[in-house]
């Protein structure tokens, strides 16, 4: 919403500058976006008079002019054909910025003659769209007159109207708040009744009161339409509106002045003498909706939810109610008899029409937010007055159909609530004054209690429903800068911290992974549906109906596709070796219990060649990182089983596994991503990843104290013994390790695999696994016999798996 300072001052008696008005608006809750001051841009330009204009010695089309200016007599070269002696025009000095040309004037010779400035056209000053030669001003305008003053350029304030305040879509609504905030005194804007001279020959029938409950109109006959007077044109153009003709300009003026949209019909183009207000219709046979060519020249199909104004016995649509009139009955310079409409259209229906038909207008914007229902007849009277003043004519009586929605109901209000809710300590008088200035009717003693008030909101404040709304009115007008400083009652930081176990784990995981060399990424919660399907998702319930882009149309079932795509993008930029992680949501369904938090990590191992040779196998680095991470977050790593060959199908079947606490509680899957999936994501492999479902990791049991159990620190030296076992090739090394470790859980503290060998000395189809067993004596040093016995148990345990001690 825009308005000019002079427009504001028509209704508000104030000496405030545009900047002061803007500040006051901001602090009253009107969010100012821009204060545009065209006068600032016009400041260098003044009126000048050409004293003499002679042909340029070296250029046919140029004239060398002697110009009387505010800076004295100047020699200026001018190319305009109308540069002639005696012309009063516009002068720009050297150094001036000419907005229409986008240049700053410098002193330089034009074909050998130095030009000491420039003579300007209206378009060069952006005062007109196009110009024919330099500006011709009336000769009586004195030299030196600022151009800004001459053209009435004045500051314009642009601000954002919050949806609760449709009354701010008219200057009078803004003025009312500013007056209450102490910026000036309200000038009265009462509207006089214009008596009609004859019954209105046009009748109105409302068939759709749910779309338009009230409709008023009147005929004014014998008007003379045509271009608006300069003051009206200037008022509209100052805020970026186009002046059309007097009748249309009057409706626009009132829309912006009073937030009261109107419409004018050329009465002689109406078919029949009845206006019907109804919903859109469809043809009985074809079901084809009716069409209307609106004033914007476009054709719209009206549905039953759209309000249609029709004539010809309700057959011909001539307007979309509250949105835009039809081309067929528009007013032009030939209009003699005009029918003026002032109605009230339902906000929700009007908003819906705007959305479904993709049409907006000043009227639609206002009706969608809610126009003051009490302005139907006064708005019509004001329009009548202006039309009579500008176009002459003779008004009919008003025709009024339907009934305006009820005014807001009174409700009880305890002024002490202002202090209770806002903390502002104001006396009742101040509270009453503010409410009164804003148009609220305050009466003392309500609901049977003497000390309470009864407050009735004005008809234009349908947003106010209860006492809290009144506190806001009082607080914002009195000023939020007067709010007291009140610390919250000190509860101190909760002694046990504020994070629950899961939140604390997320924190630890984040910093553990960052320390292990993974960079944290935050990626979209959505992905492309067919990608989601590759990762076990893509359920219909998780498809976004209105995605921002077609490749972000489904909630992700896994973080991995995002990380894989991110790694591929990095590779495409020349950074192939990346380690990324993300801790975030995945979506298994659309219910509140179907979201999971996962910790996902991805390595794209592209280590640079190193002079020391290849490093560790990246897959086992990843496994080590995963295990370390699980330990850090307190997962029961010792109790977890590693199952290979059971991973879901986006994993490499031979190079992936999962960690689980039984087959139904899968904690994590990890390994290499399936090449087919990488190809579908346009990513080069290999890529290694893990995804931990945090919700599946059991939380440690709460303990009564923070004290830890006694530490197990044996005094005796641990010793090690090496074994080599031959097992069939398909046997998992982990099985052997587990069997050996289980041979004596008290003495064996670790089992380390230090060699896996196939080849000479080992039968075909078998492999040799060499292990180092760490033995921790407990009570006494082990004798040779003790160690022999233990070795026997180890070999026996291994033999149960079909392993033989390698000889």
């Amino acid at each position, binding site marked *: 919403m825009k308005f000019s300072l002079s427009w504001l001052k028509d209704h508000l008696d104030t000496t405030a500058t545009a900047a002061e008005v803007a500040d006051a608006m901001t602090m009253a809750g009107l969010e100012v976006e821009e204060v545009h001051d065209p006068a600032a841009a016009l400041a260098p330009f003044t009126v000048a008079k050409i004293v003499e204009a002679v042909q340029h010695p070296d250029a046919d089309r140029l004239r060398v002019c002697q110009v009387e200016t505010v800076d004295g007599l100047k020699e200026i070269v001018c190319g305009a054909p109308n540069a002639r002696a005696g012309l009063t025009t516009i002068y720009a000095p050297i150094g001036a910025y000419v907005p229409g040309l986008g240049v700053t004037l410098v002193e330089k010779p034009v074909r050998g003659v130095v030009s000491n400035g420039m003579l300007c056209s209206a378009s060069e000053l952006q005062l007109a769209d196009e110009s024919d030669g330099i500006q011709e001003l009336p000769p009586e305008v004195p030299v030196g007159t600022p151009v800004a003053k001459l053209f009435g350029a004045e500051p314009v304030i642009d601000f954002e109207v*919050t949806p609760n305040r449709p009354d701010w879509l008219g200057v009078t609504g803004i003025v009312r708040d500013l007056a209450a905030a102490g910026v000036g005194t309200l000038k009265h804007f009462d509207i006089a009744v214009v008596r009609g001279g004859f019954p209105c020959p046009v009748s109105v029938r409302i068939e759709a009161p749910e779309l338009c409950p009230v409709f008023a109109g009147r005929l004014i006959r014998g008007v003379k339409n045509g271009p608006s007077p300069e003051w009206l044109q200037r008022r509209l153009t100052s805020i970026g509106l186009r002046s059309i003709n007097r009748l249309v300009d009057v409706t626009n003026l009132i829309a912006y002045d009073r937030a009261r949209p109107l419409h004018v019909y050329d009465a002689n183009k109406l078919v029949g003498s009845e206006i019907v207000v109804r919903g859109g219709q469809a043809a009985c046979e074809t079901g084809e909706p009716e069409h209307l060519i609106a004033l914007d020249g476009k054709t719209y199909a009206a549905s039953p939810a759209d309000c249609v104004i029709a004539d010809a016995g309700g057959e011909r649509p001539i307007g979309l109610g509250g949105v835009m009139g039809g081309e067929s009955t528009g007013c032009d310079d030939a209009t003699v008899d005009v029918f003026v409409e002032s109605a009230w259209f339902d906000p929700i229906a009007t908003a819906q029409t705007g959305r479904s038909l993709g049409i907006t207008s000043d009227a639609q914007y206002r009706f969608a937010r809610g126009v003051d229902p009490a302005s139907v007849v006064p708005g019509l009277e004001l329009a009548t007055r202006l039309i009579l003043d500008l176009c002459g004519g003779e008004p009919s009586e008003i025709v009024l159909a339907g009934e305006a929605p009820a005014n807001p109901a009174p409700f009880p209000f305890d002024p002490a609530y202002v202090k209770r809710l*806002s903390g502002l300590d104001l006396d009742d008088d101040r509270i009453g004054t503010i409410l009164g200035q804003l148009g609220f009717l305050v009466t003392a003693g309500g609901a049977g209690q003497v000390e309470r008030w009864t407050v009735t909101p004005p008809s234009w404040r349908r947003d106010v429903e209860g006492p809290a709304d009144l*506190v*806001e009115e009082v607080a914002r007008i009195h000023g939020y800068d007067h709010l007291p400083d009140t610390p919250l009652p000190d509860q101190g930081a909760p002694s046990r911290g*504020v994070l629950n176990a899961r939140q604390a784990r997320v924190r630890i995981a984040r910093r553990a992974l960052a320390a292990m060399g993974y960079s944290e990424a935050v990626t979209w919660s959505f992905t492309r549906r067919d990608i989601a399907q590759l990762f076990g998702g893509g359920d219909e319930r998780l498809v976004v*109906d209105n*995605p921002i882009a077609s490749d972000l149309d489904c909630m992700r079932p896994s973080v991995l596709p*995002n990380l894989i795509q991110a790694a591929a993008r990095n590779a495409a930029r020349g950074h192939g070796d990346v380690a*990324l992680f993300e801790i975030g949501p995945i979506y298994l369904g659309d219910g509140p219990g179907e979201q999971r938090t996962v910790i996902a990590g991805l390595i794209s191992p592209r280590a640079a060649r190193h002079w020391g040779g290849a490093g560790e196998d990246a897959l086992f680095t990843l496994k080590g990182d995963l295990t370390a991470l699980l330990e850090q977050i307190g997962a029961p790593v010792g109790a977890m089983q590693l199952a290979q060959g059971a991973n879901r199908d986006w994993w490499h079947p031979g190079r992936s596994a999962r960690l689980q606490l039984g087959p139904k509680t899968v904690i994590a899957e990890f390994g290499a991503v399936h090449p087919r999936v990488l190809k579908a994501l346009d990513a080069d492999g290999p890529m290694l990843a893990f995804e931990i479902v945090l919700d599946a990791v059991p939380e440690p049991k709460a303990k009564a104290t923070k004290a830890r159990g006694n530490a197990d620190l044996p005094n005796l030296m641990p010793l090690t013994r090496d074994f080599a076992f031959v097992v069939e090739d398909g046997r998992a090394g982990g099985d052997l390790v587990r069997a050996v470790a289980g041979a004596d859980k008290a003495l064996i503290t670790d089992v380390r695999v230090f060699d896996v060998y196939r080849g000479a000395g080992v039968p075909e189809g078998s492999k040799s696994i060499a292990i180092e067993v760490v033995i921790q004596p407990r009570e006494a040093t082990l004798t040779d016999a003790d160690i022999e016995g233990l070795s026997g148990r180890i070999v026996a345990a291994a033999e149960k798996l079909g392993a033989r001690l390698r000889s």
Partner: protein
Amino acid sequence: MIDLATLELDLINAIGGAATVAEVEAVRVAALGKTGTISGLLKGMGAMSPEERREQGPVINGLRDRVASALAAKKAELEAAELDARLAAEHVDLTLPARSRRKGGVHPTMQVMDEMIAVFAEMGFSVAEGPDIEDDFHNFTALNFPPKHPAREMHDTFFLRPDPETGERKVLRTHTSPVQVRTMMSQEPPIRIVAPGRTFRKDSDATHTPMFHQIEGLVIGRDIHMGHLKTTLKDFVARFFELDDVDARFRPHHFPFTEPSAEMDIRCDRSGGKLVLNEGDDWLEILGCGMVHPNVLRNCGIDPDQWQGFAFGMGVDRLAMLKYGVPDLRPMFEADVRWLAHYGFSAFAAPNLASGLS
């Protein structure tokens, strides 16, 4: 009788001429070994008369001690030389590079989230969470958005496909306020929580992404008013930006779920192309806030005649950008490792109040 002086000279020469530890050892065996020359002399002392022994004893023992110490000195010297030679052979070129390690880091949005939670924890707020996929009730209706009201349109809501049976359309939460609703519906006041998390709006330009992060707060008590709101938020913003105080203003605004409502601005100066807080003539919008609307309390089963309080919400990514000078929002979600390396944080820089937030 052996000439002891000659013997000593020979032995000392032999020791001096030894080039290796083994040669020194050979000299030692020849002199001090079981059948060595000096050993023979020492043995021969047993056959001497007491007078002879008294005279020869110190001479022979002296000889033995001098030879022994010469042997030891030579051996130490040769061992040192051998070690030097071995170490010289062990020389490596340390200008060669170590195996490079990937440098990990924490995303700025998450770092800032941790910072905010650290400050709010100190003020007694606990952390509440809720689902990203919400129903209309929790995201809008409970929060006093009238059905079909323009304020709903302003939220640019993402919808999931309608349920084929009920026609219900789930939404991606447009703010973390539904967590406030869930908290109020499940917890008795007094309440003091913050709700951080992902939020979604169908908007994409230089300052908007379809997904972003918010942190919202809710304080409900018997007599919590706007003065508490003002002080709490000023304290928070000052601590978050690590300033002693902030020059803040509260502007009236409109939100359906609060009444009165406000936006909080901080004085700032952007003239140098850099953002400086507490200086200049400009204002930087930081957050939206207000007193929880009585309808919202009622919708959540809380009696507005007994309880009242304030709520606030702010964009975490945006505040991260403001605090750490990140110029553009969109790279936040692109996982460009170059960007992450530049704007990320060390794993060990966990925000805490002891060392300052950052």
